[in-house]
């Protein structure tokens, strides 16, 4: 009954407010669930991929640059204790699919014992298929993939390996026993074929050890160690997965934190709605108190409302989040794939815990947001006491207190922004952003109070008779709720401005970087998957063809490999220093001409390192760094530190000849071509592609195309961010709508009085609309200031701490001005509905309602 009185009935009779609040919470939860689900799907695929493909292997024998095949022989004494399985695992592009696939080269005779896949019975039975697999170029496909590509045994299957077109023969299909999605993009070939295809003859990527019953892992490890060289590791597959997921951790954290932002906006909306609903129901609550309702009963009914909003919003948000995750996956996939070389996940799963968490966070946020409104609700006096209440200005002490609290928040924000990263994550800096939002929320109320006092002053008296004057008075009277509304607008604007500033600073920096550093005329690289993920390397023959056509001294092949700084993986790259020293390249942090730096590096056999590497390992120009590479260690002096936004794990670049001494030439990742002046790049590209014939799947991009692509990749990566910005803005408008309807309800009698005294409908509507615009303008102004501060923290602290990237702080002034104007306009528009309601109100009716 009580619930019906205070909660259900008002909701049923005026459902709009309740529904908008639920949507606000749902939007916040959806944003969180979507980003968490999408980034987890991408990361989980790495981990699951590793674990599942590793099968029953308990231990893996690996080395940074792979293993020589002879090691297999050395492990022969172990065959009594374990199944010893050699593996090649590589990535190739399946052009028919437009996506990357994992190619697993295994010893088919032993492998079915250890992996959870079941080849078609027919495959093993048929001698022809077995022959194809073992001697010819036969490949096993997962059943689902075969169906999708509509291929049958005996059909040819075209794949691109190191950009070279290769044709395999479908020998049969296999069905994974579980985790079908992990296996959806895996091709299985015989290990000898894999070695040939990927230019790894005589080499293995890893050797898996599956202990026989009764043999412990520890014993096997010890035994294997005795038989193997010291630079070879024996560890669990999990360790490999952990290293991969560690790399995307910062990315995942930032995405989640960013989506938490929209949840915060949702919370502000709930607080606003509940606060206004308490105000709107003040009379009802007061009457209930007179008739004997206890404070607890009133608190309980408000809490029920909060929980209902949270649970409904949470449930809707989880559902919406799953849909959103599907949409966001592309963006997250390419971001993750850019960080970790791998085949990312294809489907979104909603783990039960995430659904439960979404629901719980929804309820938790709503209940937290209910605290202040709740305090106000239980303070409602009995109805006899309401009559004497008059709107009062904030007292001096409370304004002074607000200023003090705001100052404390501001100091806290500065201190947190200066704090170092916490376990490599920018936790303190994000807390600093929250503190800045706190400044905003605390400061809004006194600012509106100043406005209201201004309204009582001479300035306002000059404007007497206009709707503005009445609107200011109305805002002044309803200042407590108005500050909720302006606060909500302010938070949303601040977040939009902060994110906008961050993205713009980032984008401009990256574009400038690309314009300065990308000087080659043509880039050649393996055909990318439709997701934009680059798959594998270029066949060395592509380099030879280019050299033949254009000469050796205009070609800069760029090789990469994984090396280790201590235990941390970093990218070791080799570039043609002699070419770049003539033509110029990346931009160096100390401002030196890149040609001079590369010339010096070439002369002294020194390295240049990317900024993320330098900040991650605290390296300066002139220091000497030591890396673990395939054949031992490599020590080089650091000649220069260049800006690098393409890589966050850290990159060290040495001269190509130097690089090739440590790593065999298995082809560069890409090839840059510097044409002599006067040569038409487009014509040169046509010549090159013609010379390559149809044998390779390569992309050749002209300078401007590559730069456009950099921007496109950037925008795709930040698509989620923009969506979050839109959510924040929508929530802000909802908040204004809620508050205005509440203020309107509160001022109903006054407005009716204005009408009764001869005011026109237009004047009354004008009062409400002006009120809305004032609210919006106050929120927008506060949000702009705080948003710039948060943007500064994001650009100068969060980015550096999580990626090691230095960005310039470049607020997008014109679009910020537009945002401010648009928000004010949106608030004005949001005010139209209540303004119309006010205009339609019959004066006598409103006066009578109150008795």
């Amino acid at each position, binding site marked *: *009954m*009580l619930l*019906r*009185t205070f909660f259900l*009935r*008002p909701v049923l*009779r005026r459902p709009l407010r309740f529904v908008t609040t639920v949507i606000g919470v749902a939007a916040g939860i959806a944003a969180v669930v979507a980003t968490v689900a999408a980034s987890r799907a991408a990361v989980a695929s790495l981990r699951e991929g590793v674990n599942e493909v590793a099968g029953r292997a308990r231990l893996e024998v690996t080395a940074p640059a792979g293993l020589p095949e002879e090691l297999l022989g050395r492990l022969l004494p172990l065959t009594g204790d374990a199944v010893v399985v050699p593996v090649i695992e590589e990535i190739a592009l399946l052009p028919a699919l437009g996506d990357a696939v994992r190619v697993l080269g295994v010893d088919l005779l032993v492998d079915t014992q250890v992996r959870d896949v079941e080849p078609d019975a027919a495959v093993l039975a048929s001698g022809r298929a077995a022959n194809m697999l073992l001697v010819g170029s036969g490949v096993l496909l997962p059943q689902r993939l075969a169906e999708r590509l509509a291929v049958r045994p005996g059909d040819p299957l075209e794949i691109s390996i190191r950009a070279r077109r290769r044709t395999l023969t479908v020998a049969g299909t296999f069905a994974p026993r579980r985790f079908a999605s992990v296996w959806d993009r895996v091709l299985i070939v015989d290990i000898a074929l894999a070695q040939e295809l990927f230019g790894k003859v005589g080499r293995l990527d890893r050797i898996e050890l599956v202990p026989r019953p009764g043999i412990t892992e520890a014993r096997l490890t010890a035994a294997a160690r005795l038989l193997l060289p010291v630079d070879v590791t024996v560890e669990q597959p999990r360790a490999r997965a952990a290293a991969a997921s560690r790399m995307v951790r910062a990315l995942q954290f930032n995405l989640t934190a960013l989506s938490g932002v929209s949840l915060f906006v949702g919370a502000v909306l709930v607080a606003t709605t509940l606060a206004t609903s308490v105000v709107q129901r003040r*009379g*009802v609550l007061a*009457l*209930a*108190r*007179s*008739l*004997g*309702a*206890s*404070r607890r*009963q009133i608190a309980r009914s408000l809490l029920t409302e909060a929980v209902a909003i949270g649970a409904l919003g949470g449930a809707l948000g989880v559902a919406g989040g799953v849909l959103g995750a599907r949409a966001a996956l592309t963006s997250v996939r390419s971001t993750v794939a850019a960080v970790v070389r791998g085949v990312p996940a294809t489907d979104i799963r909603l783990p039960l815990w995430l659904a439960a968490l979404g629901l719980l966070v929804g309820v938790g946020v709503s209940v937290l947001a209910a605290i202040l409104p709740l305090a106000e609700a239980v303070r409602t*006096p*009995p*109805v*006899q*006491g309401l009559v004497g209440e008059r709107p009062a200005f904030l007292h001096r002490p409370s304004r002074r207190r607000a200023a003090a609290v705001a100052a404390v928040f501001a100091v806290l924000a500065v201190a947190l922004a200066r704090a170092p990263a916490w376990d490599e994550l920018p936790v303190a800096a994000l807390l600093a952003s929250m503190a800045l939002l706190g400044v905003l929320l605390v400061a809004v109320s006194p600012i509106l109070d100043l406005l209201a006092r201004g309204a009582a002053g001479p300035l306002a008296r000059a404007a007497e008779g206009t709707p503005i004057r009445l609107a200011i008075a109305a805002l002044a009277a309803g200042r407590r709720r108005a500050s909720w509304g302006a606060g909500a607008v302010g938070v949303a604007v601040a977040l939009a401005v902060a994110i906008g500033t961050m993205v713009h600073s980032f984008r401009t920096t990256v574009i400038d970087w690309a314009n300065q550093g990308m000087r080659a005329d043509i880039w050649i690289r393996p055909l990318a998957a439709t997701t934009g993920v680059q798959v594998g390397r270029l066949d060395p023959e592509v380099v030879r063809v280019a050299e033949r056509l254009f000469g050796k001294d205009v070609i800069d092949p760029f090789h990469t490999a994984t090396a280790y700084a201590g235990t941390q993986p970093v990218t070791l790259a080799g570039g043609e220093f002699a070419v770049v020293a003539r033509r110029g390249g990346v931009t160096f942090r100390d401002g030196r001409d890149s040609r001079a730096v590369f010339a010096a590096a070439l002369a002294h056999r020194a390295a240049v390192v990317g900024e993320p590497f330098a900040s991650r390992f605290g390296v300066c120009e002139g220091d000497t760094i030591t890396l673990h590479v395939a054949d031992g260690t490599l020590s080089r002096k650091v000649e220069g530190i260049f800006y690098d936004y393409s890589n966050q794990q850290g990159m060290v670049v040495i001269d190509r000849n130097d690089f090739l001494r440590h790593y065999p030439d298995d082809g560069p990742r890409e090839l840059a071509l510097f044409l002599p002046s006067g040569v038409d790049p487009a014509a040169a590209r046509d010549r090159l592609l013609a010379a390559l014939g149809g044998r390779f799947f390569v992309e050749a991009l002209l300078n401007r195309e590559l730069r456009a692509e950099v921007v496109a990749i950037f925008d795709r990566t930040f698509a989620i961010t923009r969506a979050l910005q839109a959510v924040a803005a929508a929530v802000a408008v909802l908040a204004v709508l809620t508050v205005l309807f509440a203020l309107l309800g509160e001022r109903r009698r006054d407005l009716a009085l204005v009408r009764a005294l001869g005011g026109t409908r237009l004047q009354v509507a004008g009062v409400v609309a002006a009120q809305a615009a004032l609210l919006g303008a106050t929120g927008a102004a506060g949000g702009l200031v705080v948003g710039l501060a948060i943007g500064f923290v994001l650009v100068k602290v969060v980015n550096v701490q999580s990626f090691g990237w230095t960005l310039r702080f470049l607020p997008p002034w014109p679009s910020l001005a537009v945002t401010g104007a648009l928000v004010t306009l949106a608030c004005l528009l949001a005010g139209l509905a209540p303004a119309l309601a006010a205009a339609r109100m019959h004066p006598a009716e409103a006066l009578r*309602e*109150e*008795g």
Partner: protein
Amino acid sequence: MTAVTELRGVSRRYLRGDEVVHALRGVSFTLSAGEMVAVVGPSGCGKSTTLNLIAGVDRPDEGEVIVCGTDLARAGEAELVTARRRHVGIVFQSFHLMPHLTVEENVALPLALGGRRDAVRVLDLLRRVGLEGRRGHFPAELSGGEQQRTAVARALVHRPAVVLADEPTGSLDSASGTAVLRLMDELRRQEGSALLLATHDETIAAAADRVVRMCDGEIVAVL
């Protein structure tokens, strides 16, 4: 007869800016079970203050306000809630019905707040105030007289010992006002509740068993 309400030396002061307003100055009187007492006096003499103290929505600065054995001046929040919920029924000048509830639900509200339900009793009262046919209507759909009759039913539904009515006819035309007064008098006789009625209208006071005349926060005569 037993006293259902007793005021002993009750004073109440308000601050209005820097000025102290003495709303009540040492007021004492007794309300016995089942009797009807009218409090009369000019506007601002302290009638509403007196009723609010008995309703447990305000506290005196001095003196005792004993309602059904509880001194509300010293009672805790929980006892005040109980007093409002069980011992007192209120009729307001401006009706104060819950806008989202039907007539029937409004009448049932005091019971519901105590976790009780008694559809028979609610229906019976609605019949007696002549609103049986309008029980599904919302307050906004009723006339002033009908709204006040709903409020009268609500004030009696939980069988309070005391019904407080502060200018109950102040918002009504004289015909509906007279009807509401007659109804209140009739019902409280049947129910055995005491009725304390504040008014500045001497003619209304005529129906009361006793009249307490107030002026400037003091009782000047009891007739």
